[in-house]
């Protein structure tokens, strides 16, 4: 009996020793496991981000000479009508696309959640644009929207609408870009919402049905509140995706035109940097965008109480 007691005590001592030893081992292992990704993120994300903010205080000429001009670029922004018009275009695009993606994504998720024949095929069809590159998407739509001869105008003829210039009329072009954006992104958000819907326990709906709740009431008082985490995720990611992701589409489809109607900020930054060589000015606009997006995301994190990000 006593022998056994002392033996367990001894084992315990060995164990604590082993734990402290393994703690040091764990720290060393963690260092090597984290090294490649940390180094990569540092060089290709953190450094460029800081560089963008720093570069924003310089004026860079075509020969790569940089001159410190303090807040000069920011003052220039304030007085640059094209910057303001790009900001306006971006905001307009944002306030239409984000709610549209939300409503369409959720609507499609509710539809494809139903037990209908061939629902798998319908689901795939709704999702397929998402896997196509934006360059190809831009070309296909350009072809369909060609003035006078495009298939869309041919279709509208049937309703007595003639010769709309979807890509040439400033009034129409941003709307066209909005529709295309929603068309290719809706499948992605449909899946995200579908995952959220499948997490809601079915008993809740059954109980509500027994209590005589209508379909609208079940949606309003069960689906919407329980989808809140998914909804916030969709709002954050779609905002970031919309602000920074419209570039390929605008570059190939409209080149910012007609007369700046689709010149999103991200496209304006590219133009300033790679067409006019205004690296400092472009970086200043870029860093402003970084700050705004970070503030927006932080606000969203606060509103969601940061929950569900860390399981520890």
């Amino acid at each position, binding site marked *: 009996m006593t022998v056994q007691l002392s033996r367990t005590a001894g084992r315990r001592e060995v164990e604590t020793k082993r734990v402290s030893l393994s703690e040091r081992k764990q720290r060393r292992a963690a260092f090597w496991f984290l090294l490649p990704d940390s180094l990569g993120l540092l060089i290709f994300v953190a450094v460029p981000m800081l560089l963008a903010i720093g570069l924003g205080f310089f004026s860079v000429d075509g020969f790569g000479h940089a001159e410190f001009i303090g807040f000069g670029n920011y003052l220039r922004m304030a007085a640059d009508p094209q910057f303001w018009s790009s900001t306006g275009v971006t905001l307009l695009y944002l306030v239409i696309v984000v709610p549209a993606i939300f409503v369409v994504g959720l609507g499609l998720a509710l539809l494809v959640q139903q037990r209908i024949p061939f629902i798998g095929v319908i689901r795939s069809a709704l999702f397929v644009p998402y896997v196509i590159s934006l360059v190809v998407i831009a*070309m296909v739509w350009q072809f369909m929207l060609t003035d006078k001869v495009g298939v869309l105008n041919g279709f509208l003829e049937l309703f007595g609408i003639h010769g709309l210039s979807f890509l040439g009329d400033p009034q129409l072009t941003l709307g066209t870009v909005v529709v295309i954006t929603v068309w290719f992104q809706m499948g992605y958000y449909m899946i995200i919402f579908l995952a959220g819907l499948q997490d809601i326990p079915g008993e809740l709906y059954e109980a509500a049905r027994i209590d005589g709740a209508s379909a609208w009431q079940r949606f309003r008082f069960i689906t919407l509140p329980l989808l809140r985490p998914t909804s916030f995720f969709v709002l954050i990611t779609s905002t970031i995706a919309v602000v920074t992701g419209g570039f390929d589409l605008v570059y190939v489809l409209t080149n910012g035109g007609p007369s700046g109607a689709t010149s999103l900020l991200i496209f304006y930054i590219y133009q300033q940097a790679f067409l006019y060589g205004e690296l400092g000015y472009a970086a200043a606009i870029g860093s402003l965008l970084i700050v705004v997006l970070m503030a927006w995301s932080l606000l969203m994190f606060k509103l969601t109480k940061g929950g569900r990000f860390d399981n520890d």
Partner: protein
Amino acid sequence: MTETTRTARKKLKTARADRRWTPQKTVLFIVGVLLGLLTVFPLLWMVTSSFKPADEVNNLDLLPSHPTLENYSYVFSQVPFARYMINSFLIAAAITVLALFFHSMAAYALARLKFRGRDTIFLMIFSTLLVSAPVILIPTFIVIRTLGLLDSYAGLIIPAIFNAFGIFLLRQFYISLPAELEEAALIDGASYWRIYRSVILPLSRPIMSALAVFFFLANWNAFVLPLTITSNPDLWVVQIGIANFQQQYSSSWNYILAASTVAALPTLLIFFFFQKQIVASIKSAGFK
């Protein structure tokens, strides 16, 4: 016993209900089919129009009256499209493999090892998710130029590897694994590398295959970074190739659509064969 028969009966009932066409279901079915057709129409139109001869490409018939492969052979004879495709394939594949390897390593450390500053490091990595590539395009370009990677395969591959998205998803997955898995291995004196190699990696096969499909697609479709850092046509990826092709043949839609179809074909094939993986990777992205 009664419980099981009840659930069995219930299952039978729902299965039968699935097959019954209620008016409500018929309406939903019609809506679904219409929306699905509308959604795929642009892609269908692209593919069928790519088989139309030049004088027919702008007419409004869905199917070509004289289908031809002429457009395809012209595209491949005028432009080194095969080369662009091979470039795209090699680059996207290299990024996918390296990214999965590095991300799973980092995720393993963040999820399963205990060390000081772990949560701070995770938060820092997580916050880089908010800075997406196009916003820092210019400084990234400067960094790549400074490293001497402009116009090189390394420049197309290395910067695209590092993305916190994969680390985040893998970490979430590793956290959910039971702790007992490693305990036995640790008592046997296995190193952490050994545990990662022979316990964690084999277990992560489903999520890794989902992420692999997703990474490959995203990088096959990448446009902005290759656009800014390559000027040598030998290094062009397929997206740059078709964007450039379109500028040269701006009104020859029959050729442009053939080129677009070729560029889209691999992603469509991947979609049809790996749908489950794509959907799984998106679902796990929903912060579940």
